[in-house]
């Protein structure tokens, strides 16, 4: 590992430049005032209700919409006691169904919570406005309350006739005509009409196009997770052809790196890891499944097939080996080997995990809330949860495995099979045959019972396999197994599958989902910012044969995508979270991209597809200090090429995940995860400044620049800056960096004078260029897409 002392020895020199920039810095408040956020949130249906409602000056909408204005309040503040869960329902009143909300209540059935158009007779109005602690709803003991604004919304809704609508996401999407817009020149494709329509309604204009440099950087990261090379940037910038951009997009979609980028996201969804995850956290071999995922994306396997193979590949008639390999998806959950655990307790957890993963990833529902009781917010009964659970409850598997045991069911994959039909598995010759966990209904007689309070040892009523009827009843014609479940998922009448999938793809490309709660399309989830666009996309996705590349191309070819991420103060004030997309979101690189970018631009990246997971640099001792002495007790760093592979190949030990990745908000892989946090922390700064991998990349890039002997300092600085940020530095930036380079050289000399005179000019140059490169890696722009 590279150390600065190798090129420079020194004595301490106190060098304290007065940080005059701090004058500038303090002039600026770290973040805009809350009130500005509130201003947008008052008419943003996505906004969090509690913050919205705390402002008494917010004007009520003229027409109250049940879905956008009323139900979010009812769900969040009332459903706990007046919602779907019959077990905790108070006073026989339920507000989550039309019949329930209008029904007669009270001892003599002479009262009504809601009488459409009649405030006086609606008990709800009196109760929510009461000042009597015995009467007021919600009651003080719930720790919930309604703001004045919310009370007015509910009241006005009743006044206007209390019009009921069913939950939006349970109504199958319908493709509406693309809307008419005033500025008809702007749209590139259908997406833009929907976006522009809302902007025009709000009196906003789309932003200008991003520069070509910014655009190519963004699209490279979004589609491949890697930065463009300088040659690629130059070629694009100088290509005046109208289809120049489309050519880039097509090239990226056809590149192998596309599959790696898509797989990075799917590994979070699939909670993929290289260890079992509980307690001693032993190693497992699931990377061949990961190789399949990359292959599936690259060969553009349609989404319905992609899911079908993973959920039920083993049940397909004449299932191919590849289809069986794909079912590894549902074996990625954690497995314990802890001595003394009760086998059934953990077996049940594994089935729960599969059920919850299916629900979160494919349906956007928080079904796990119905494990112990009926769902508190959504129309999913506990019985329905276990009906769904039943699909995954037929695997003959152990709850506790032994150390050294490869959990069953599994398949052995031979070299011959790889050669014949599984060429996508990049198995080195040096390792023996692979045993891979897969799915099988080899305990097909196992019955499923409702588990009281979700506990493994408290079975009550037997249930048959099925699905939540509020979403779509399970058709009698379908086989009652995982294959039938997939058919149900992709039934034209299933209202969720296409929306949830396309929303997640949208999140990948635009930074946030049209439904920002990508994991919750239920009553407590966010409402879509562009409902008609979401439905248009969902139906189009299905109509186009679930073609993922085609949908992604549509998104990145839109004028919406092409916009700059520059935000005017007015725009920030009008839409701080960029819900309306009057500009591009200035998205940060993911954990994988941060490291891959450094490796790629410095020339260190070893771009090799697939194979066993690798162990690049990580700080010493992390595994050793928490180990029990069994399993993976020590992290042994790989040598050679494997230090420089793309980050999606980094060995993932669940109980001690790669620290720099976790610091940059990578998912823990303990459970299915469809959205990562986007934080900015001091620990991230420390990684960027000091991670030996980043320092090594800086040095490597510095060296290659110094080897280009014909270049002068200014030219070198421009090249380094461009490689890392994809754009030319402006004159003042170049000067600043030249200034820094010069002072680093001086500093080196100052520090070296009294030490051994072995330092030559080359060392000085290398030192100065290394710290300069490190500086540029630490610019905000270096970890931003475009």
């Amino acid at each position, binding site marked *: 590992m590279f150390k600065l002392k190798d090129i420079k020895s020194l004595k301490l020199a106190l060098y304290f430049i007065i940080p005059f920039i*701090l*004058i500038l810095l303090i002039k600026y408040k*770290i973040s805009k005032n809350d009130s500005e956020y509130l201003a947008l949130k008052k008419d943003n249906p996505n906004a969090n209700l509690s913050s919205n409602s705390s402002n008494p000056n917010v004007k009520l909408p003229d027409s109250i919409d049940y879905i956008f204005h009323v139900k979010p309040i009812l769900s969040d503040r009332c459903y706990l006691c007046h919602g779907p869960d019959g077990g905790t329902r108070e006073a026989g009143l339920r507000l989550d169904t039309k019949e329930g909300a209008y029904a007669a209540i009270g001892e003599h059935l002479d009262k009504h919570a809601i009488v459409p158009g009649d405030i006086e007779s609606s008990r709800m109005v009196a109760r929510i406005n009461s000042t009597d602690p015995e009467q007021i709803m919600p009651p003080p003991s719930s*720790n919930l309350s309604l703001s004045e604004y919310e009370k007015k919304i509910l009241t006005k809704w009743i006044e206007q006739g209390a019009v009921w609508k069913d939950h939006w996401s349970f109504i199958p999407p319908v493709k509406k005509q693309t809307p008419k817009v005033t500025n008809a020149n702007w749209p590139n494709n259908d997406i833009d009409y929907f976006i522009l329509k809302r902007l025009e309604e709000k009196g906003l204009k789309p932003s200008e196009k991003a520069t070509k440099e910014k655009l190519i950087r963004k699209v490279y990261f979004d589609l491949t997770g890697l930065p463009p090379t300088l040659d690629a940037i130059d070629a694009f910038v100088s290509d005046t052809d109208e289809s120049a951009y489309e050519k880039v997009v097509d090239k990226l979609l056809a590149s192998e790196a596309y599959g790696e980028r898509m797989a990075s996201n799917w590994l979070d969804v699939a909670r993929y890891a290289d260890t079992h995850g509980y307690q001693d956290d032993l190693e497992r071999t699931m990377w061949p499944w990961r190789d399949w995922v990359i292959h599936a994306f690259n060969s553009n396997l349609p989404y319905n097939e992609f899911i079908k193979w993973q959920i039920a590949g083993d049940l397909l008639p004449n299932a191919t080996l590849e289809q069986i390999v794909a079912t590894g998806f549902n074996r990625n959950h954690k497995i314990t080997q802890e001595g003394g655990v009760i086998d059934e307790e953990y077996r049940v957890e594994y089935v729960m995990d599969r059920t919850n993963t299916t629900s979160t990833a494919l349906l956007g529902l928080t079904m796990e809330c119905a494990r112990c009781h009926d769902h508190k917010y959504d129309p999913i009964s506990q019985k329905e949860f276990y009906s769904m659970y039943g699909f995954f409850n037929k695997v003959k598997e152990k709850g506790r495995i032994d150390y050294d045991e490869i959990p069953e069911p599994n398949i052995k994959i031979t070299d011959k099979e790889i050669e014949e039909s599984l060429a996508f598995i990049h198995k080195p010759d040096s390792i023996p045959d692979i045993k891979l966990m897969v799915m099988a209904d080899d305990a097909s007689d196992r019955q499923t019972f409702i588990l009281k309070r979700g506990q493994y040892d408290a079975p009550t009523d037997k249930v048959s396999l099925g699905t939540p009827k509020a979403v779509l009843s399970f058709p009698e014609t379908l086989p009652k197994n995982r294959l039938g479940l997939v058919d149900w998922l992709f039934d034209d009448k299933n209202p969720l599958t296409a929306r949830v999938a396309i929303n997640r793809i949208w999140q990948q490309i635009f930074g946030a989902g049209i439904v920002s709660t990508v994991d919750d399309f239920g009553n407590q989830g966010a409402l879509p910012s562009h409902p008609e666009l979401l439905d248009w996309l969902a139906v189009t996705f299905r109509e186009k044969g679930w073609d993922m590349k085609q949908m992604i191309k549509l998104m990145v070819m839109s004028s919406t995508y092409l916009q700059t991420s520059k935000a005017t103060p007015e725009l920030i004030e009008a839409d701080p979270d960029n819900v309306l997309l009057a500009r591009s979101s200035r998205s940060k690189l993911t954990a994988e991209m941060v490291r891959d970018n450094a490796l790629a631009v410095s020339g260190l990246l070893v771009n090799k597809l697939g194979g066993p997971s690798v162990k690049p640099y990580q700080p010493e001792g992390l595994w050793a200090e928490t180990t029990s002495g069994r399993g993976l007790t020590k992290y042994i760093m790989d040598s050679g090429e494997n230090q420089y592979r793309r980050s999606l190949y980094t060995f993932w030990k669940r109980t*001690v995940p790669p620290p720099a990745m976790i610091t940059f908000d990578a998912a823990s892989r303990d459970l299915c995860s469809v959205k990562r946090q986007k934080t900015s922390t001091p620990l991230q700064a420390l990684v960027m400044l000091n991670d030996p991998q980043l320092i090594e990349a800086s040095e490597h890039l510095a060296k290659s620049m110094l080897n280009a002997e014909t270049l002068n300092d200014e030219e070198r600085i421009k090249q380094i800056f461009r490689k890392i940020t994809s754009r030319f530095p402006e004159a003042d930036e170049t000067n600043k960096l030249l200034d820094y380079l010069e002072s680093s050289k001086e500093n080196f000399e100052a520090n070296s004078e009294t030490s051994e005179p072995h330092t030559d000019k080359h060392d000085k140059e290398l030192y100065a260029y290394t710290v300069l490169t490190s500086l540029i890696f630490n610019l905000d722009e270096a970890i931003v897409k475009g």
Partner: protein
Amino acid sequence: MEELNKHFINNNRRHFLKKLGFGIGGLAAASLLDPFSSISGQAQLSSATGLHLPHFAPKAKRIVYLFQSGGPSQLDLFDYKPLLDKMRGQDLPDSVRNGQRLTGMTSGQERFPLVGSNFKFKQYGESRAWVSDLMPYTAKIVDELCFIKSMHTEAINHDPAITFFQTGSQQTGRPSMGSWFSYGLGSLNENLPAFTVLLSRGTGRPFSQPLYSRLWGNGFLSSLHQGVQFRSGKDPVLYLKDPEGMTRGERRKMLDYISELNYKQEQEFGDPEINSRIAQYEMAYRMQTSVPETMNIEDEPEHIIKMYGANATTPGTYAANCLLARRLIEKDVRFVQLYHMGWDQHFDLPSQIERQAKDIDQATAALILDLKQRGLLEDTLVVWGGEFGRTNYSQGTLTDTNYGRDHHPKCFTMFMAGGGVKPGFTYGETDDFGYNIVKDPMHVHDLQATIMNQMGIDHTKFTYKHQGRRFRLTDVSGHVVNDILV
């Protein structure tokens, strides 16, 4: 009001700067932009989420949680049961076990021979608390301690049990206790993270139960609130150390250039995230000084080192970590979480626990006394305990001198000190077999509720909405145990 406050803070910031000039004062000013800081970051956080914390005046501002990982044997340390000596070797009556589920490690055992402790118990202090010979230093400070003899939990295996203690749920994915406090109350200082973690390996059974970094994870809270591990060795916080050969002056200079160039970007793109990032770099810079300063115990006088014991100067030991914990508390770190591994003593318990108790006894007592003599104990809560207790019968063969004990969730002992809990007090009682609780049971959620209460938080009101549901540390249960509070 909120706006006025902000205005005030901003004005003060400028004022502050003018007074001190732009050198070191500049750095301090930048710290006001810091997300860990109680001033700016927390004010924003609270108003943005409507937390309005604390709910009431706190008794404690800081916590040291001394987690004894593996499950210490209450029957050999604090819960004295003479009946077990009398009945040594006889079977645990079914009427006492009453169907309690057993771990797979002893469920196959033909016999469950009762066993008392090999170690002598005596009563100490004015409070007459029972302590075994294993804990002579702790015995001397019993009048500072509040023992809870009636802890009970729901899990019988390590992974779920320790996860339950730390996050309120046996399933993974929820925030750790320290993360909740960091999120809810913010940081009291501007140079160190609010939630720090220290690990040590016991000598009792050095390799028994592992730890998992998710135990101090932020779950669904922002990763700003994850526990930051302070490690022994040259890089006490990961990536803290500048590359070898780089001076602090050079680092400062680089940061100044970075900030300036970033600021230019902010002007162009108007992204407030950039300012946040500039502030993060300043915090990182300050941590580079403050963390090694905290870790360096050279300025500790001899008599203090002596108090904590010989191991206090050996980095990475429990004693060294206790001393560090005191230093962190002195610097107003909100939550210091220690883990000491090695309490999972299924076999050869007498010899293992002797070593293990020696690891922790003196340093634990020293920490409490040291906090007290500095006036910090009154608003610092110290918590000591493991994830469950151990059985009153021997796992494996019982001999005249040797025995082991399996996990026991139905009763175990913890103790607390400072932070407004009753000193010299014992709460709860177990039966003569040391198997069941007969008086004042205290569930894990009750403990968590009580700890929150001492920090000024009503555990039922402190929630975080995630996937549509309001989560809290105590899940859906838990009561504050007022009987143990001053």
